[in-house]
Every structure is written in C-alpha cells, then in structure tokens.
C-alpha cells in the first residue's frame, strides 16, 4: 500500500513537471534555443502566487491565471528584446544569453526576496484525501489536475488551431514555414510567451506543494532537461511520459534512500539517456 501511495504521489508530481518541461520543449522546437532561464520563469510564477497569497490573501488557484498572464507578457518582452537577436546565431550565443538571463533573474530575486524559503499554506489544500484507500495529498492532486488541463489545452491548441499549426510548422522547418507565408517572428514571440506562461503556471502549482526560494529554478531546470531528453526532444507525448517517469522514480528514490540522492536521480537519468540513447524514447533522430 505504501509503495502505491508513493508511486501515485510521484505520478501527480510528474504531471506538474510535464507542464514545465513542455514549455521548454516547445521553445526549443520552434527556435532551437535552449532556454536556460526557464527555471527562473517558473520561480517568478511561484513568487507571484506566494505574494498574492501572503500579502493580499488571494486564493492560490485564482492567482494562476494572473501569474500566467504576467509571465506571458514578460516572456514576449524577453523574446522581443533579447532572445530574438540570437535566434539565428550559433548555439553558444543563445546558450550564454539565456544562461546570463537566468543568473540575472536569480540574482534580482535573491536581492529582493532573500534566499529564505517561503511557502503557501492554504488550508483547503493542506492534508490529504482518501482515494480508494490511498492517502493522496490534496495539493498534489489539484496541481496535477490543473497541470493536466493546461497541458491538454495546449496540446489541443497546437493540434487544432490555425496558429497552433503555424507553431508546429515553424518547429518542423522554419524556412519553409516562412516561405509559406507564416510570420515566424510572431510565432516565436507567441511561443516564448506561451512557454513562459506554462512555466509560470507550473511554478504557481509547485508553490502549493513545496517551499520555494529564488534558487529553485536551477533545480527544476535540471529535471526538465532530464525529462525532455528522456522523452525525446520535440515530442509532446514523450515529454509527458518522461515527466511521469521522472516524478515517480524521484519520489521512490526519496522514499527508499534519502532526499539527497533523490535529487541525483534526474541528473543520473539525464546522463544515462544522453550516453545510451540521445534521441530519447520518442524523439526523432536529428
């Protein structure tokens, strides 16, 4: 029973990871940019939820759309002013740029909010429900549900809507998409904005489950890479599966060994996958 509970807990967490990683995946797919600042975008979303809750008593669930919009705007802004400039440059430029942004944002956050851990303790979501004899953390279940909703909505959007198709076309072959009349610049702006919003939402959700600090971004980006590489760059389904797998193995590792080693799981998985099968489970070989 215990193990099942742990696995379930891990799966729920994985859902939130999936949302985070999907945004990163999308940005890479469309622009070939590895957004090393993605973790800090998540962190900002988490802090928005925290401050709205602790200063204004806003229901964390209500804060989600707010943090999403805020980061959507920030994302578009970042893309417009900075990231767009390095899109067609060699990889090193975008790697360094986003790395610099990540360091910059983390530094600003440390300055403003200190490195103390904060938490959002909202009474309706503390404790757990009994689901078929298993104790399920309320916050995790709700977070999972919302993450699933958003990820599903995004997937539908990409698949069915016209702009979604434009995004997919651009990520498959940017030059051809442009020739077909797609405004790739606008696609990139939207993608970065959307990816940032997804990161923000996942951050808000994480704030409901864990304690947060300005340095959390660094931790989660490692997990996101592990997920994307495991699932295969460019594959939405792969990201989801990879996220669930990672969430579960992490939680199991924390349960059986100590929390320290649980952290190592993501990195170990990442390295193993890169060395054995870089294209991941579902990835297309580039």
């Amino acid at each position: 029973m215990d193990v099942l509970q742990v696995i379930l807990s891990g799966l729920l967490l994985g859902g939130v990871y999936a949302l985070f990683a999907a945004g990163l995946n999308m940005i890479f797919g469309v622009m070939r940019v590895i957004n090393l600042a993605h973790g800090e975008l998540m962190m900002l979303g988490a802090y928005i939820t925290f401050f709205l809750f602790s200063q204004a008593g806003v229901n964390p669930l209500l804060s989600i759309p707010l943090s999403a919009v805020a980061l959507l705007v920030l994302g578009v802004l970042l893309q417009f002013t900075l990231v767009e400039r390095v899109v067609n440059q060699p990889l090193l430029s975008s790697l360094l740029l986003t790395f610099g942004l990540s360091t910059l944002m983390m530094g600003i956050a440390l300055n403003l909010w200190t490195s103390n851990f904060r938490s959002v303790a909202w009474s309706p979501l503390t404790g757990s429900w009994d689901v078929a004899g298993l104790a399920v953390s309320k916050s995790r279940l709700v977070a999972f549900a919302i993450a699933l909703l958003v990820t599903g909505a995004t997937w539908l959007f990409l698949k069915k809507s016209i702009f979604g198709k434009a995004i997919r076309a651009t990520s498959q072959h940017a030059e051809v998409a442009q020739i077909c009349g797609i405004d790739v610049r606008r696609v990139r702006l939207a993608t970065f904005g959307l990816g940032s919003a997804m990161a923000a939402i996942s951050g808000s959700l994480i704030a409901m489950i864990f304690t947060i600090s300005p340095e959390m971004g660094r931790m989660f980006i490692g997990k996101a890479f592990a997920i994307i590489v495991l699932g295969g760059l460019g594959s939405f389904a792969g990201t989801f599966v990879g996220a669930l797998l990672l969430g579960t193995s992490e939680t199991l590792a924390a349960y059986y060994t100590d929390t320290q080693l649980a952290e190592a799981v993501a990195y170990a998985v990442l390295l193993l996958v890169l060395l054995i099968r870089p294209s991941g489970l579902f990835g297309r070989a580039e």
Partner: protein
Amino acid sequence: MSSPIDHPTAPAEVEDTTIVRGRPTPGWERYLGWIYLVILILATGFLIWYPSTATAYAVSLALIVLMTISLASSWNFLSGFGGYTSFGHAGFFGIGSYTGALLLHYEKVSWIPAVIIAGLGAGMLALVIGYPVLRLRGPYFAIAMLAFSELCRVLITAWESVTLGGHGVYLPIVRFQREEDGATAWDRFGIQLHNNQNYYAMLVLAIIAVSIAYAIGTSRFGLELLAIRDDEVAAQSMGIQTTRVKITAFGLSAIFPATAGAIYARQVGYIDPPTVFLVIWSIRSIATAILGGQGTILGPIIGAIVLTLVSERVWEINPNLYQVIFGGLIVLVVLFMPGGLIFLLQKRGILPRSRRL
C-alpha cells in the same frame, strides 16, 4: 613573388610577409612569441614582488584575479578554441576542492602534493568521462556537463562518511611567520613566500594555464580545435582525429579548475558542497572568457582583471548584486560584444589585429 621551391630551406616568401613554420605570420607577428615572453617575465617579476608592499586584502584580491585567469584560460581550451561550450568547470572546481581539502583533512600528504593530486586527478577523470560525453553534439554536451556538475555536488553531499557531507570540511590555517631581527633579504623573501603561499600557488597555476593557452593557440593542435569549432564533420572527413583532439583539450582544461579549487579551499579554510560546486564557478569562467574574447590568449587575462575589479566594487556596495552583475554582463557581451574586449580593442586600433592574440 619568389617561389618557395627555389629556396627549400628558407622560409617561403609571399609578397612582403614571411611564412614561418607553416603558419602565416605577417610582419610583426613573427615576434609575437618574444613579445609575450617579455611581458610574461615582467609580469611575473612584478607579481612575485607584489606581496611585499601590498595589503593582505590586495593580495587576496590578486589571488582571485589569478584564479580567474586560470579558470577562464582553461575554459578556452575546449570551449573557446574548440567550440564545445562546457558548464563543467563548476564540477571540476568542486572535485578538486574536495580532493585537496580531504587529503589535507585526513593528513595524507602536505599541501603541495595535495593540490597537484587534485588537479591531475580531475584531469584523468575528464579523460575518462570525456570519451562518452564528447560524442554528444553542442546542446547535448552543454546539458550533460551541467548535469555532471550538479551530480557531483549531490554525490559528494551524499557520501557523508568520507566527505563529511553538508557539514563541510575545515582546513588548517597557514600560520603567519614573523620576521626575526637580523633577518637577511633572502630570509625575508622566504617568509614572504610562506605567508602568501596560496597566492604564489595561484600565480604558478595562472602562468602554466596561460602558457598552455599560448602553446595551443600557436600549434597545429590549436588549428585542429578551430577546425572542429568551424565544422566538425568536415574536419573529421579531412582526417583530423577529432575525438582524440577533443578529449585531450577536455582533459587539459579540467586540471586547472580542480587545482584552483584545491588552492581556494586552503585559502578560505572551509568548504562545503554548495559553495564549491556553485555553478557560479562555471559562470565566472565563462563570463571572463567571453568578456575578454573567446579563444584568445590575452582575453582571459584582461577579462579576469576587469571582472574581478568590477565585482569586488559591486560586492562592497551590495553583495547580492554579484549574480545580477555577472548575469547582466553575460547578456550584454553576447548581444553587443560577442568578440569580447580583445575584439573591441582591435577594432579601435588599440591592439593590433591578429587572431593569435
């Protein structure tokens, strides 16, 4: 234009320049090696003398500059020349730090061997992991090294029985020696050496790092790295042994952050995993190298001086701005000065144009 075939033993002459040892060397560049040597000797002399008149604070600052020079120069080996952006310097810094610190903590060897073992050990580790990791292309390699650094941190923290985990490792502080009455100049110099051991160790390390950078930059090995950076597939198709070249550069580059880490541990007297594995060490190496100019020899030196002085100033004003400055700097350099300070100075005519710089 005389034909090189007429004078098989004399350097080929094409127009008014000379080709020496198969390298293009217009006019003044022939003397670049000598110019560097002179500068090196003068600088070394100055730096050896420096602690006798400087405050302890100034010396520790100079130590940081020298350390940053080693970090950035060595980062250049694989990442500047070869184009494989590595975020592994933090990992090697931490490994070297811990190796050196633990060797001293358990009193296995004295400090100089400890530092050397730390450095060479990391070099060997890099050779071992280099083979699988360097098969990965650009973005995958970068991510892998990020993961590697973090994995090292986590493993060292977890292996408490040996590494004392999160508690950290305390190191014996170097006892300050005082001058005796009637001490000769030689005695005084010996005392100065003793009291500033870490500084002199960093000086030696920096000299070696820059020398190796020079050797690479002016050798065929360096050309092969540049070829790999420009087009690895073509390089390999033309017979360049890319795997061997990359692994060698990688192994060489790991020695320096590790050695620096070991000396640094001694300098501050206490280390723990979050401090020495902090990705800031990678950031510092990278920021300095690109600020100065990627794949150049002087770049890391200029970058280190500028960066350290600026960040010390910033530290005085507000310690938390540290990261902000670094981050902002990287962003600015990438966007507006991708060639670094060296390139900027060359454009302004302050420095002569040459990729050899």
